[in-house]
């Protein structure tokens, strides 16, 4: 009972996901198969990794609009380092992770030191990083290095490398969120910043770390993107911040902070992937406009279904 109550939103989300998946499977041939599901995982891995980082930020009561830009930046940087400077793939990825983490930490530090709202700092960060990415390379850049390609086509069992990375991120993030003091401090920070400070928790360190984590995840997603696309791309990151926020919130994490879970985010990512794929690819609507309307409608019905299930299972909670 207590387990059910505690994870109600995620469970409701999962249930709603299964319902929609069942409908899609009934509607489209070949939807209900392992390869299709694995495709979901790998196709949404990049967004998923970004969303994992975003989960921490939102749990802490903040928001990070720079993730898309950081991701693009990191992928372009990796491309430039490998193609123009003949770096080793691992070194290039490492360098981009360092850059991404540093950018995130810098934003966290600015937020903490100056008291400017995260929304603005990370919005400025988004502009800044996007500008930076254009400066290091104006175009998207194709990556064709044997070492890189060999990683890109690697598979673990039936899973492509990006899917593996995504699942690993979810697992590690779950561990960090639930079983480490840092994770709990993030929840506390989101539940009440002043209270957390008065309770003697390391508010400053936690906050800076949260944005650093988000920067790390975003730049890792950039690396995953290069494996997925074999290129460093400016374009893929545009608008990704909203997608990431949407998946996190769909997964039951409160935008106000303090409540939510990493598994919720996993459900959110799968959900968004399901909606987008089934509408744009399987349904194959001829009108771009109607496609968007359908995406929105499905998204909304998912959220409503999730709400309904939550209420049904939990019963009317204390209204206060």
């Amino acid at each position, binding site marked *: 009972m207590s387990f059910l109550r505690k994870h109600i939103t995620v469970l409701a989300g999962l249930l709603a996901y299964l319902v929609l998946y069942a409908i899609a499977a009934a509607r489209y041939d070949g939807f209900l198969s392992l390869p299709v599901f694995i495709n979901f995982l790998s196709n949404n891995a990049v967004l998923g990794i970004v969303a994992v980082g975003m989960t921490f930020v939102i749990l802490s009561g903040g928001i990070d609009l720079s993730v898309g830009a950081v991701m693009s930046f990191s992928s372009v940087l990796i491309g430039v380092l490998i193609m123009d400077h003949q770096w080793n793939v691992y070194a290039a990825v490492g360098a981009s992770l360092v850059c991404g983490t540093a950018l995130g930490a810098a934003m966290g530090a600015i937020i903490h030191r100056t008291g400017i709202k995260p929304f603005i700092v990370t919005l400025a960060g988004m502009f800044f990083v996007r*500008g930076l990415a254009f400066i290091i390379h104006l175009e998207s850049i194709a990556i064709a290095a044997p070492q890189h390609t060999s990683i890109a086509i690697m598979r673990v069992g039936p899973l492509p490398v990006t899917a593996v990375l995504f699942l690993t991120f979810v697992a590690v993030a779950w561990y960090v969120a639930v079983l480490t003091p840092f994770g709990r401090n993030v929840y506390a920070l989101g539940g009440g910043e002043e209270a957390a400070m008065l309770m003697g928790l390391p508010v400053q360190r936690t906050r800076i770390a949260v944005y650093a984590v988000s920067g790390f995840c975003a730049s890792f997603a950039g690396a995953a993107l290069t494996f997925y696309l074999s290129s460093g791309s400016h374009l893929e990151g545009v608008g990704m911040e909203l997608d990431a926020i949407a998946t996190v919130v769909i997964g039951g994490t409160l935008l106000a902070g303090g409540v939510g879970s990493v598994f919720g985010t996993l459900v959110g990512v799968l959900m968004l992937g399901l909606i987008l794929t089934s509408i744009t690819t399987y349904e194959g609507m001829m*009108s771009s406009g109607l496609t968007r309307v359908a995406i929105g409608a499905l998204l909304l019905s998912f959220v409503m279904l999730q709400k309904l299930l939550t209420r049904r299972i939990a019963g009317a909670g204390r209204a206060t």
Partner: protein
Amino acid sequence: MRHRNFWPLVALAALLVFNLIFTTGFARVEFRDGRLFGTLVDIFQNGAPVMLLAVGMTLVIALGGIDLSVGSVMALSGAVAALLMTEHGQSVPVGVLAALGVALLVGAINGALVSYASVQPIIVTLVTLVMGRGLAQALTQDQKIRFEIPAFEFIGNGTVLGLPFPVLLVAAVAVAVSVLLRRTATGLYIEAMGGNPQAARLCGLRVHVIRLMAFMACALCAGLAGLIAAADIKEADVANAGLYLELDAILAVVLGGTSLTGGRANLVGSLIGATFIQTLTIMLQMRGVITEHTLIIKAIVALSVCYMQTPSFERMVRRLRPAEGA
């Protein structure tokens, strides 16, 4: 205590002074064809949509919400008006009213879902962001709709008393909203709801209705902005109208000093913020700064202006000039 708009004004003034001195052609204002021309006029004319959005957004943010759908509402309202007036041969007033009606409807949907279904505002408006533009695209079958309807174009670039009509429209809306905020109980109620919705309910405020109205007002502003944007270029461009403008509007509101957590509305600040953004954009265009650098400059400037409004900046100023004191 300094006036709350002190620092935003200082920033804007600094920017203007810089441009008047260093940007060639910035200071020039001329009177031609019964109308004022010049960069200073352009700032307000081109900035009109964002200013309108900022006005509406101020209400929603003060209430503790956020509205991401404004850009899509712009596209939708422009498309509806253009469609009615071109393909369905309706008169201008009918087109305008219908467009605003559609905008209001979207606002009502936003408000209702936030209020009655208690879905988080960011999710609701993200959905309407996607659907709104989609609907506009579906209505126009992905086509741009061009028109030559002088009466309608007037909304975008007509002249009244030597000033562009959009500027006057923004002024009128701003005055109306500010009267609503400061001279009626609405402002008090909205700020109360943003500050503590639970307490607001226990004080007998009609929380649902107020929320609904705020989202509708915001959408109405967006609808007007959409009309201006379409009328200005004589074309309803569903794919691009208002694209990403929600971010500009939110930025304007925050630059103006309204806290994103709600509880306080600073309308004048938002207008200053919008003016600031537009001035910066025009300046960068006039000086021929390339996009890469534009992005970086924008980032740094926005951060600095926000920093000027924080207590930590205030402390620094006080330390630098102890004589000034309180």
